């Protein structure tokens, strides 16, 4: 069948600049460029290009430009290029349109309509460069009260037995991305950067590769519906365990790691045969209720002798607040909320862009609900899905998060250009792939440096903004919605966010 889908991008090569070095041929994993020996010239198949900018970045003479195809269908606010292309693709394949990364629609972001306060005159701002600033964060269940005892000679000692806590030097962790959806070198980079920065990286649901066990103190091991690579050693290896119920990019649906991505190494870590589809069922089949969730939380606590916090991650959905309350009552040490803009290695586009709610609203609603019920201390709240700057982190903390998870931002720091083609497994940046030729493109030493640089940069920015408010401990921002004001929001939106209008 002739395809009616027109190429999305046009590859242009400046003949005056091109030196026919063939770097582009080697860099592109979509076979876009080729060299014609007979005519000694470079050719491109624009229809293959996904605009990842790999070739343009590596072209030594900057000869390549990738442009959106100017052959656009007649513009139409409803029947957009994306809608038309999707329909044509489906007509030709009869399948579900896949995509990668998070929702790319502009109207689902609230961060940019929230503004942060600063001190002027009435209380002094603090200069973080010269004065102490505290970003340290503890994730885990906090007691209702502390029992102290005065002991002669020893002063005061704490009698309350504290629940296990994770100590973060900055309130930012790396969110779950499975080994299989991303490469081993990305996992190595994440593990090393988390270790260096005093924070944590999440394995995602594909298990933990043997060589990464040594970073265990900075690893959160995930237990998802597929239970891939979940065994006692794995549970013991991590500093915390995360039960994945859902994911912001695809609430309510499972996942398939296609067989061609299940290479020798992946099959070993996931403990499934080579080349079979790795199916993650939509629900966890031992969890059909909050009571069942409690059963799994405690099974994991039993399996690790109550030494590790257990997180429960849900996608931000309409009744997230009530669900979160159930999760806390079920005994979770932390609730992870993943908003609609959260990324993925592969999801049906229709689900990614239409199912779930923005993290800002879910976070505000959950924090408020847990406070109203007097159980906010019983679990930490972690916000994920669409955190793209240090300001977003700070705003999330002011809305009630204890810490944030980032994933897309982490990948961008490694080179990702958010081309949204992760599901093809051919990521030219060597990130969302298991192809050995491509995974080599990430050097874990450099990767770890870049990730640690990102964390350091964001942490410095958070301290700057805190200092500006005259606040010297992140603890004082947490749930402090007075430091935020909203702009361009309706009364109801402001009410749910629990923030006042700018100028108010």
């Amino acid at each position, binding site marked *: 069948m002739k395809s009616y889908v027109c190429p999305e991008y046009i590859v242009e090569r400046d003949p005056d600049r091109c030196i026919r070095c063939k770097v582009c041929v080697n860099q592109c994993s979509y076979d876009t460029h080729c060299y014609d020996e007979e005519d000694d010239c470079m050719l491109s198949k624009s229809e293959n290009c996904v605009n990842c900018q790999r070739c343009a970045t590596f072209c030594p003479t900057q000869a390549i430009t990738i442009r959106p195809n100017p052959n656009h269908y007649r513009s139409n606010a409803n029947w957009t290029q994306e809608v038309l292309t999707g329909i044509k*693709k*489906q007509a*030709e*394949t*009869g*399948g*579900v*349109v*896949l995509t990668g990364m998070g929702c790319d629609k502009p109207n689902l972001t609230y961060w940019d309509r929230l503004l942060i306060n600063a001190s002027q005159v009435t209380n002094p701002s603090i200069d973080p460069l010269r004065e102490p600033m505290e970003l340290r964060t503890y994730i885990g269940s906090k007691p209702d009260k502390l029992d102290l005892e005065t002991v002669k000679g020893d002063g005061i000692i704490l009698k309350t037995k504290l629940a296990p806590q994770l100590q973060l030097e900055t309130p930012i962790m790396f969110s779950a991305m499975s080994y299989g959806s991303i490469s081993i070198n990305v996992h190595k980079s994440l593990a090393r950067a988390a270790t260096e920065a005093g924070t944590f990286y999440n394995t995602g649901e594909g298990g933990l590769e043997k060589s990464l066990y040594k970073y265990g103190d900075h690893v959160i091991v995930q237990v998802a*519906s*597929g*239970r*891939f690579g*979940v*065994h*006692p050693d794995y*549970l013991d290896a991590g500093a915390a365990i995360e039960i994945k119920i859902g994911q912001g990019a695809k609430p309510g649906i499972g996942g*398939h790691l*296609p*067989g061609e991505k299940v290479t020798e190494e992946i*099959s*070993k870590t996931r*403990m*499934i*045969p080579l*080349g*079979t*589809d790795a*199916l993650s*069922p939509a629900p966890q*089949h*031992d969890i059909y209720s909050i009571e069942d969730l409690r*059963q799994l939380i*405690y*099974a*994991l606590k*039993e*399996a*690790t*002798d109550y030494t590790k916090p257990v997180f429960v991650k849900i996608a931000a959905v309409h009744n997230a607040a009530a669900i979160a309350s159930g999760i806390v009552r079920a005994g979770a040490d932390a609730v992870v909320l993943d908003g609609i803009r959260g990324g993925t290695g592969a999801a049906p586009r229709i689900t990614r862009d239409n199912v779930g709610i923005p993290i800002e609203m879910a976070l505000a609603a959950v924090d408020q609900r847990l406070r109203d019920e007097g159980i906010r201390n019983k679990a930490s709240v972690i916000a994920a899905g669409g955190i793209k700057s240090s300001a977003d982190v700070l705003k999330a903390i002011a809305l009630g998060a204890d810490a944030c998870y980032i994933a897309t931002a982490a990948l961008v720091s490694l080179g990702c250009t958010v081309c949204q083609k992760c*599901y*093809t497994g051919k990521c030219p940046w060597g990130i969302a792939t298991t192809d050995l030729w491509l995974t080599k493109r990430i050097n874990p030493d450099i990767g770890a440096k870049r990730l640690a640089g990102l964390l350091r940069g964001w942490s410095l920015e958070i301290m700057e903004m805190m200092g500006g408010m005259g606040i010297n401990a992140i603890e004082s921002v947490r749930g402090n919605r007075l430091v935020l004001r909203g702009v361009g929001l309706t009364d109801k939106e402001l009410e749910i966010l629990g923030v006042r209008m700018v100028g108010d």
Partner: protein
Amino acid sequence: MTRKMVTTCEKGKLAESLIRKDKSALIDATGIYYRDLNSLLRSLDSEGIEKIQICNVYGQRYIGTNLDNHLRIDIYGTPGNDLGAFMNGANITVHGNVQDACGNTMDHGQIVVHGRAGDLVGHSMRGGKIFIRDDAGYRVGIHMKEYVSKRPIIVIGGTAQDFLGEYMAGGVLVVLGLNMKGEIRHNARFVGTGMHGGKMFIRGEVRHVGEEVTITDLTEEDTLLLKGLVEEFCGYYDLDAEKILENKFNKLIPVSSRPYGNLYAY
């Protein structure tokens, strides 16, 4: 000579055990909270105890979880949900019935049940063996996996309910239907839905199988495997393997190891 061992108490009665000279221990679980019971089991495990009898078990969960050694545990009563969850090597015999999720995500070891089982036997099981003398509930062996030499095995003496072997990705599931009178016809529906690995041997007919399943005859290799498993099963319950093997068995295997390969538009 016997001595007592007591664990710290979370709730309810102190959990205590009598430790005998032959490295065996006896626990009366009456009124003991599951956390105390399991913590006692772990203490005994680390003390090098090899054999534990637990009497009067009434619904305590997670027995067998986080015991690394090759402990032998005899349970008298009805253990609670998640018996042997994430279990790594213990050998449990239950003199009674078991509740839901017995052998959940179990890695290694063995559970022999002299009775019936609830739902979700061997959910996501990755290794080890489970034998159930009588019937089992829904979703037995759902998403079982295997990797090289790690091959989980479940044998159900009676019948099992809907979604038996759903998403099955590896391992061996045997259902014998021993308590069925006349023609053996298992009432389960959606057997093997989403199955993409492993095999099931079912004695008699199945009412309804998932789209992803084909029913075939056993190969010589299968027959040998099945014979071994049935003989082992009969060994635990004192039954006649030969007689059981006289009946026709159906073999259920996945149509493809990639059932959802053509679902997407790229």
